[in-house]
C-alpha cells in the first residue's frame, strides 16, 4: 500500500487548501491508501454534445456509494466546470477521477495552449470564451471560481503555450 496519489506533493506548496481543511488533508495524506476506483474520460475539443458526460458518470457512481447530496452537487459542479474548460479552451485533454473511502481526487490534463495569467482567470466574470462557446451559454467567467468555491483543495499549473493541469480534492463529509 502506498499513500494516496495526492499526498506525493509538499502539501502547503502544492495545494491551495480551503482554510479549516488543513488537518483533514494532513490526516488523509498520512494514511496509506490506494484509490478504490479510477475512472478516465477523454475530453475532445469543442465537443459540446458530449462534454459533461464524464462528470455525470462520476456523480452517478458516487450517488450509488451513498455520498451526501450537497457534497455530490459540489463535486459535480467543480468537475463539470473543469470538463467544460478543457472542451472550450484547449485542443483536447482527459479527466481522471480517483475515488477513495472518504474523498475524491479529480485531475484534468489538456494538451494546451495554456493559461497566460492564472490570477486573472480566477477573477469572477473574466472570460476568454469565443462566440461558439458563448452561444451555448458558457463564458460567464465563473469556471475557475466555481471550481474553487466547491473544492477543499485545488492545484492549477499552466503557462501560455503549455498544457494545463487542474486538479482538486473534495471530502465526502
Amino acid at each position, binding site marked *: 500500500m502506498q499513500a494516496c496519489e495526492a499526498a506525493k506533493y509538499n502539501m502547503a506548496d502544492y495545494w491551495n487548501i480551503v482554510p479549516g481543511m488543513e488537518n483533514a488533508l494532513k490526516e488523509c495524506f498520512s494514511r496509506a491508501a490506494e484509490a478504490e476506483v479510477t475512472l478516465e474520460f477523454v475530453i475532445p475539443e469543442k465537443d459540446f454534445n458530449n462534454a459533461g458526460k464524464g462528470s455525470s458518470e462520476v456523480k452517478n457512481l458516487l450517488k450509488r456509494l451513498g455520498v451526501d447530496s450537497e457534497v455530490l452537487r*459540489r463535486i459535480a*459542479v467543480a468537475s463539470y466546470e473543469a470538463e467544460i474548460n478543457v472542451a472550450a479552451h484547449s485542443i483536447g485533454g482527459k479527466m481522471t477521477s480517483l475515488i477513495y473511502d472518504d474523498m475524491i481526487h479529480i485531475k484534468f490534463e489538456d494538451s494546451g495552449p495554456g493559461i497566460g495569467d492564472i490570477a486573472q482567470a480566477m477573477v469572477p466574470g473574466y472570460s476568454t470564451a469565443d462566440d461558439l462557446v458563448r452561444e451555448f*451559454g458558457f463564458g460567464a467567467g465563473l469556471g475557475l471560481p466555481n471550481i474553487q468555491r466547491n473544492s477543499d483543495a485545488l492545484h492549477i499549473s499552466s503557462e501560455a503555450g503549455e498544457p494545463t493541469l487542474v486538479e482538486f480534492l473534495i471530502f465526502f463529509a
Partner: protein
Amino acid sequence: MTLREIIALLDAEVLNAEADIDCNVPCAFASDLISDILMCTKEPTLLLTGLTNNQVVRLSDMIDLIAIIFVRGKRPLQDVIEMAEERGLPIITTKMTLYRSSGLLFNAGLRSCKI
C-alpha cells in the same frame, strides 16, 4: 407552491406530457448563463432560462433541478426534450419574458434559491 400552480400563473405549456407537475417547488433561480446556474449547489431548485441547448438539461445531472421553464416562447429541439424525458425532468415553455416570469413568481411567494 406546486409546479402545476406555477404553470397556470405563467400561462405555460408542458413539453413532456408524462412529467409529474404536482411536485412541490420551494425556490427558483433565473439565468441565461450556465456557470451562473451552477451556483445552485445548496438545494434543489426550479430554473427559468432562455437557454435551450442540451447542456441546460445536462446541468440537471450536476445540480438538482426540479423543472426547467423556457422563457420568451423558446422551445428546445426534440433531442433535448428526449434527454429531459430520460431524466424525468419536467420542461415547460412560457411566452413571458424572464423578468416578468420571475416577478410574477416572486410576488406569488416563491423565494430565491440559496447560493
